């Protein structure tokens, strides 16, 4: 048995050396190539060998069974390996062949506000790689920003002559509250009547914006403006809806009647560059027409439903109209988490508790 124990420990040391060496190589390769390497056939064989060594340890080394800490650590490591294999692409393919459980290991969903989808897409090609047995509806997407001392920006969107035609361009407006400012090289004048650094929009019964009021809890600003061109002028409010980072104010009434609406002329009220604090997607899970669950997901708080996790992974940077969800199968996760708990508990028991107990017994 002593010989077997020595061989087992020697093999374990060798396996740890191999894993450490391959991990160093993987660190130089970068995450994507490392993932591919660790899922390649030789490494899959290595994972199986490592799992076999852990199982063999229980038979070759009685200490592993006698010491609760050692037993927990080794069983924990085994469960983490099993969980990792179960959650891998290969694990999903095997489960599909053996048990007919055709789960999608991972992919992405792009869901527009108000829409629902069950299509999971490939992250690189964008092609649909599978469909979930339920649909995910996006009810609302919003971004919360850290408060910024910088005031919101005003930009004039107007046509700029370009060769024979024109193209739309944006010009900044260097505004100051109570003063009139010009917009780029145009003759349009913008007078900022009032600026509220934290405000909420006020709507009339028909949903039209009629003003704004100070709201200390809001991360958006609002502005009352009078914009004039020659004899014509328009008066109104720029107040983005909750979670929005920009809003536009049409200046079409400033244009002569014959060209009104073509080309577009607008004043944009834009949040200054600021670091997002968090991203939120209000999701609903639909089975048929029934709403089975609702959850507002954010970074670190995914939705778990039907054996899948849904993570906030991206969004429509132009208009904030859709969200991108990372979809991951939860296969193997329970085994891995139990393994993690056993690893930590086992390490603490083996390294801290068992020596302390031995010391106390020695004193006694």
């Amino acid at each position, binding site marked *: 048995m002593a010989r077997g124990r*020595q061989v087992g*420990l*020697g093999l*374990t*040391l060798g396996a*740890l*050396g191999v*894993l*450490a060496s391959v*991990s*160093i190589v*993987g*660190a*130089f390769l*970068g*995450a*994507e190539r*490392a*993932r591919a390497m*660790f899922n390649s056939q030789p490494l899959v064989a290595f994972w199986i060998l490592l799992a076999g060594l852990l199982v063999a340890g229980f038979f070759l080394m009685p200490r592993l069974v006698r010491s609760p800490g050692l037993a927990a650590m080794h069983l924990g490591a085994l469960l983490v390996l099993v969980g*990792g294999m179960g*959650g891998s692409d290969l694990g999903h393919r095997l489960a599909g062949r053996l048990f007919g459980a055709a789960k999608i290991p*991972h992919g992405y969903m792009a869901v527009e506000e108000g829409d629902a989808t069950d299509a999971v897409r490939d992250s690189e090609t964008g092609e649909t790689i599978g469909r979930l047995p339920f649909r995910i509806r996006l009810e609302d997407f919003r971004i919360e920003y*850290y408060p910024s001392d910088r005031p919101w920006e005003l930009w004039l969107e107007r046509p700029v002559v370009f060769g024979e035609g024109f193209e739309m361009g944006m010009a900044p407006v260097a505004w100051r509250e109570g003063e009139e400012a010009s917009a780029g090289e145009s003759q349009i004048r913008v007078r900022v009547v009032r600026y509220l650094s934290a405000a909420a929009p006020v709507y009339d019964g028909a949903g039209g914006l009629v003003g704004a009021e100070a709201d200390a809890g809001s991360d958006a600003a609002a502005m009352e403006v009078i914009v004039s061109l020659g004899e014509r002028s328009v008066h109104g409010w720029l107040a983005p809806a909750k979670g929005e980072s920009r809003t536009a104010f049409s200046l079409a009434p400033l244009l002569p009647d014959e060209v009104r609406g073509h080309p577009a002329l607008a004043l944009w009220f834009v949040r200054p560059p600021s*670091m*997002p*604090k*968090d*991203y939120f997607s209000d999701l609903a899970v639909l089975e048929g027409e029934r709403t089975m669950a609702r959850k507002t997901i*954010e*970074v*670190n*708080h*995914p939705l778990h439903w039907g054996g899948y*996790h849904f*993570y906030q*992974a991206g969004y429509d940077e132009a208009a904030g109209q859709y969200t991108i969800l*990372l979809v*991951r199968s939860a296969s193997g*996760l329970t085994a*891995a*988490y139990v393994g*993690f708990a056993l*690893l*930590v508990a086992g*390490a*603490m028991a083996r*390294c*801290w508790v068992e*020596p302390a107990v031995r010391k106390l017994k020695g004193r006694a």
Partner: protein
Amino acid sequence: MTVQFSILGIMMMVALVLDAMAFIVLLTRARRAGLGLFAAGFASAATAVVVRSVHVGHAPMQNLFEVFLLMGALVFPLSLFFRYVLGVGGMAFDALLAAGVLAPAVFVFSPEPAPLPPALQSVLFVPHVAAYLAAYVVMAKVTVQAVWQLITVAAGNAEVSAGAERSAYRMVALGFPLLTAGLVLGAVWGKQAWGDWWNWDPKELWSLVTWLVFLAYLHLRALGGRRWATAGSVLVLAGAACILITLFWVNLSRLFAGLHSYA
């Protein structure tokens, strides 16, 4: 190199000077005075940690400046634990370690605060980083014991060498569960934030290598007892090198860009 003339910078500088003085005084065997200076250095560093926390509005663990400040404050209480619970001496080195850890925070790293990115707003942020920082301080102490073991064995002093080996083993036994907890908490957090508990990110891989090296140390000792003390010390040095790579290189170099690039 810049010196910070803020309240925070002055408190850190005071802590560094007191820790350096504690090192010198402890070397002269004036233990009580040295301990007093070390404790005063800790008080100053701990106050700096509190000031920084209040200023940035979260636990100061976001960047290298905050991490080194916190590690500098952690050394004193851990040193007391080493001394009075584990019976491992070398408090003079601990004072030097505290000063050495505070020095980059005082002179090198930028104290510019930054808001926490969404991924760092997790209940696992503090326990994950705290477990690693405590483990790193412990493993720094292990490294000294390992170097001492190698020096004394080369000098033919078997008795001192055996004592250093025993101390190193006790310290690894203290630090290894902390490394394990840091790794596992990071995995659980990675699952919540990025969708997978293991992402093959360079920093994850270096953390794994560090854990494997100390795991190999424990297996080696289980296999050979104290017979292979020198090989064990070499493994400890390898583990220390991995910790330095994980802590510095991956953060500072563009070579290993990955999910932990903000750290």
